[in-house]
């Protein structure tokens, strides 16, 4: 039995090709807002997908992902601003540091059952936010501002056009989704879902649940930090409330819930709904004051959680099942 390439793989591959071709359309390439919205969808989808590893597949709801995101952002920014390097080593160091911190924080709490993990991750956001606010070495409350460097892939900054960032975000998306797809098909993916569905059962079958959860957490934090590094590069700056906040943490969680937790395409679908909503409502309704996007998003989440807890992807798979059933009923009647 040879391993077959499933429909999911083709879909993911086709989507990435499609996204890669989008900027070739002049109307899209020249419109800075459209480019911004699409690349923010990629970024948000990657962020939520990284959360999905531990929150969706493994079922451990983390409210702390903005910390890992922030560490990645600070990693890149420190490399550029403090050490005059390219952001790459900083992003990588930030990712490893985030993974290490994720393991350190989760290790004691994973031994407890119930909601302690969620509570503990909630707490670390505040701790890190305050810590970075008063830590002058990393810029304190003012944060770190990039000075102008030569644009291009080496410094990962572009000033005139968003095309560079667009492809950067697309590579990030491909990487994060690729990792998750790989996990889905290998032992670790089965183990994570087994831990989510029943930790005792998993243990009885020889699954080291603590190890599984910690590896999920480490990979998840690593990828979230890479997303953070991209975010710092895109904004040319970083400060604590911008990256390490409960608002930011919530986005990781809510986008995935809206799209569908524990599914490959859920984070992408969730981001494709939320980001345009957020960006366009900000552009159009900004005069009404901040937070209009969050009100709409809140209503959407309530609707989804009440009607279809598996998110938008869940609605699609429900419809598909209905269609298949109707077809088979039709055949029986013939």
């Amino acid at each position: 039995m040879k391993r077959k390439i499933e429909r999911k793989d083709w879909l993911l591959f086709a989507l990435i090709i499609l996204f890669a071709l989008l900027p070739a359309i002049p109307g899209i390439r020249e419109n800075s807002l459209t480019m911004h919205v699409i690349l923010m969808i990629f970024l948000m989808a990657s962020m939520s997908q990284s959360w999905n590893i531990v929150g969706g597949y493994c079922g451990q709801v983390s409210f702390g992902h903005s910390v890992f995101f922030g560490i990645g952002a600070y990693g890149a920014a420190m490399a550029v601003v403090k050490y005059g390097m390219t952001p790459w080593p900083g992003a990588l160091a930030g990712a490893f540091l985030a993974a290490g911190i994720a393991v350190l924080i989760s290790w004691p709490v994973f031994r407890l059952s119930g909601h302690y993990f969620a509570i503990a991750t909630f707490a670390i956001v505040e701790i890190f936010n305050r810590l970075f606010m008063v830590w002058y070495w990393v810029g304190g409350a003012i944060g770190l501002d990039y000075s102008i460097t030569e644009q291009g892939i080496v410094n990962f900054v572009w000033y005139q056009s968003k095309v560079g960032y667009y492809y950067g975000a697309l590579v990030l998306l491909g990487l994060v989704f690729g990792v998750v797809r790989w996990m889905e098909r290998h032992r670790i993916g089965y183990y994570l879902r087994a831990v989510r569905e029943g930790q005792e059962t998993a243990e009885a079958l020889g699954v080291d649940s603590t190890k599984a959860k910690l590896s999920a957490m480490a990979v998840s934090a690593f990828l979230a930090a890479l997303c953070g590094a991209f975010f710092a590069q895109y904004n040319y700056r970083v400060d604590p409330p911008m990256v390490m906040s409960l608002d930011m943490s919530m986005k990781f969680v809510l986008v995935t819930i809206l799209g569908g937790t524990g599914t490959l395409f859920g984070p992408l679908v969730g981001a494709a709904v939320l980001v345009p909503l957020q960006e366009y409502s900000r552009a159009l309704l900004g005069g009404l004051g901040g937070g209009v996007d969050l009100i709409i998003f809140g209503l959407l989440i309530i609707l989804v959680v009440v009607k279809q807890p598996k998110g938008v992807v869940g609605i699609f798979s429900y419809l598909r099942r209905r269609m298949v059933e109707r077809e088979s009923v039709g055949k029986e009647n013939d």
Partner: protein
Amino acid sequence: MALLEIHDLTMKFGSLVANDSVSFSVEKGQIVGLIGPNGAGKTTLFNCVSGFFPPTEGKIFFNGEDVTGLPAHAIARKGAVRTFQVVHPLSEMPVLDNVLVGSFLREKDIDRAHELAWECLRNCRLEDLAHRLAGDLTIGQKKRLEVARALATRPLLLMLDEAMAGLTTTEVKESVELVSRLKDRGLTLLIVEHIMEAIMPIADKVVVLDGGIKIAEGPPQDIINDERVIKAYFGEKYSRRLKESGQAKRYE
């Protein structure tokens, strides 16, 4: 040397003594039945042996190694795998994926893990349900899934915790046949069971617990006539009546 040896195992929950100095052993290739009335401490003993509770006192040896207090996944890795009395399906996963979780213990390669999983599904007659969600199965199917999943780990010792309770007569018969088939293939089994018709004909040895204490151990026909066992199960008055009418001889 026995495959599983339990020495003076005591398990206390506060002041409640669930197992009091229980000792017995399971020889390789045997089927050992563990019986006793409700609350006798059978499941607690199972939980201790399978690593879910660290025993208060006593030692457990598996395959010559001291496994006392090891975590459950480590014991499963060594080859002692259990099922649960209250079925624990991984509800949101298909039946096949449930079994795959088991087969990944010995087969890291996904194709070989698939082959092993299908073999276990066929053994437990679940192959037609492979793509259903485990949560949608009937209770009988879920019990078979428990067994299939445990089998997929290629255990040396399979510990079944009331795998037949709540099944129809036909299903019980099928399970008994499956268990005998497994024994023929060299698997060792420790079975907690309430259904005497199921366990007595296939067991090589029966261990009886009552109130946390081992009250009898021996071949099934001896156990059936053991006065303490009858007393524990039916009470003193009934045991006297049973003896007078000669009903206890029924199983011989």
